[in-house]
């Protein structure tokens, strides 16, 4: 396990370096003069020169890259152009809100998808199966930027059960979490059904049934546990979609997380902050994928990290 972890961590380093390089190069993809673009066409030349100097854009590219990497190593992502606050500080302030929302959305997705997927597999070919899969396909197709406002109109405005926006109590979390988790629930339900169908065909399930194990126990204790690996893998991969979806959900529900910060900073052309948000989301995603790999051994003891 220790060796596997070390090897997996070493393999992650070039990916992280690539991510950092791509994020660094973003500012250089801006058409024309990045400093001019950030301040606007009408900005005085002296201000543009000053910003160029402040961002280090007047230095050779390789030197800028070296300083960017050196900054990353010590957690220095530069300073926000708009607020003058360190980027790291602003991101750290917003991180708990985004992780809270992402975790709640994952919980919503798991709570809906696993029972739906299992029921569809066990009742394969019946009306239950067709209904579950149609609902899940609809869930994948409905955009969260449409579902979110619709939920807000019904449950916040018409019924008055839940707050329409902001963060504070658990009630504030419900609508954004359902809106963000719906598509993931749909994808997970389909995957759970597919893997459950495979497991239910395995001889060990037949053997368990032949030994007199009840159908419920054979399904839940035997088949379901073994079907979890692809489902957990998908959860890890989809965590990225949840983080990206959070950008939209946070914007709709005025949720004070990193996604909203990213969109606001794009609006203000605050590129150091844009870079910081993108970098944090990507690094989090890489970390979650690493954790997903490590989860395999816990779920299936036959997997040895050699």
């Amino acid at each position: 396990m220790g060796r596997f972890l070390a090897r997996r961590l070493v393999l992650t380093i070039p990916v992280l370096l690539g991510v950092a390089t791509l994020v660094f190069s973003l500012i250089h993809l801006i058409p024309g003069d990045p400093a001019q673009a950030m301040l606007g066409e009408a900005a005085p030349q002296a201000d543009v020169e000053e910003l160029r100097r402040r961002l280090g854009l007047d230095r050779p590219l390789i030197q800028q890259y070296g300083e960017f990497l050196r900054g990353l190593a010590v957690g220095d992502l530069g300073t926000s152009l708009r607020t003058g606050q360190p980027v790291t500080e602003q991101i750290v302030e917003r991180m708990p809100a985004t992780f809270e929302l992402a975790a709640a959305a994952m919980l919503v997705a798991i709570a809906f998808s696993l029972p739906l997927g299992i029921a569809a597999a066990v009742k394969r070919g019946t009306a239950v199966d067709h209904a579950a899969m149609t609902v899940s396909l609809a869930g994948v197709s409905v955009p969260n930027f449409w579902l979110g406002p619709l939920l807000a109109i019904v449950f916040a405005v018409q019924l008055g059960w839940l707050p329409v926006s902001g963060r504070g109590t658990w009630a504030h979390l419900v609508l954004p979490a359902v809106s963000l988790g719906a598509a993931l629930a749909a994808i997970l339900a389909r995957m759970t059904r597919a893997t459950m169908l495979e497991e239910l065909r395995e001889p060990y399930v037949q053997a368990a049934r032949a030994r007199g194990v009840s159908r419920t126990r054979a399904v839940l204790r035997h088949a379901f546990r073994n079907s979890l690996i692809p489902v957990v893998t998908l959860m890890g991969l989809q965590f990225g979609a949840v983080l990206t979806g959070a950008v939209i959900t946070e914007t709709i529900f005025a949720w004070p997380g990193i996604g909203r910060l990213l969109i606001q900073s794009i609006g203000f052309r605050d590129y150091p902050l844009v870079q910081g948000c993108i970098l944090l989301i990507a690094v989090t995603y890489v970390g979650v994928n690493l954790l997903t790999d490590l989860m395999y051994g816990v779920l299936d003891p036959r997997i040895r990290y050699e």
Partner: protein
Amino acid sequence: MTRIGAAIVLLAVLAAALGPMIIPFDPADQELALRLEGPSGRHWFGLDELGRDIFARVLSGARISLLVGLVVVGVSSTVGTLLGSIAGYFGGVVDEIVSRVMDILLAFPGLLLAIAMVAVLGPSLTNVIIALSLIGWVGYARLVRGQVLRARELEFVQAARALGADVPRILARHIIPTALPAVTVQATLGIGGAILAEAALSFLGLGVQPPTPSWGTMLSYGRTHMLEAPHLTVFPGIAIAVLVLGFNFLGDGLRDAIDPQAQGQGPKA
């Protein structure tokens, strides 16, 4: 389901191609006195915040959505298939380079890199297509690379090699065709994904810019009038969901046709 999907897609294509020529309203025409008016016999989907006919705008938006879906998937699948087959066939340094680039791009979840690129390049339809294509090819390359790794050792490929066929011919005539069914399924599902991605970027103000009608932009502007005029968001939202659902049905049906096991034929527990 496949037939329903095909029917939806066909209907959308026809509506996008012929609709704007048939209906009597231009998507840009304004009737300010009637702004936010609900659906009626004259304006089937009602009028928006500037008194423009929403039905006409939904039909025009379908053109944008289908254009983005087809161009993004066309470019991504072509580039991905080429790079994936070259990496899988040659292996070695070429494979290492392509695989590492794929690893880096895959480290960015979903739309994030597209958001970043559009943020720096500027919001426009062209930049949305560029951004989505730049990230879209990776999925195809990974899929095709895996298929090619398997196919290059098959007997008919070795026979072609022994007969002296050159590499482009082996790839084009013998190896890539083995990957095409899987690419077709992914491309069909990918069109739905690209349509959703464009709508999401436009919703965030990073995609198609007004006054060009895009479903995402219509949703974004309609959101501010959701209470007094929900039809502004209901119809573009339904249009996105139904068209994406159509491509998903179609992609699912194709996948089932290629891999019948996915339908789950087997004994019950």
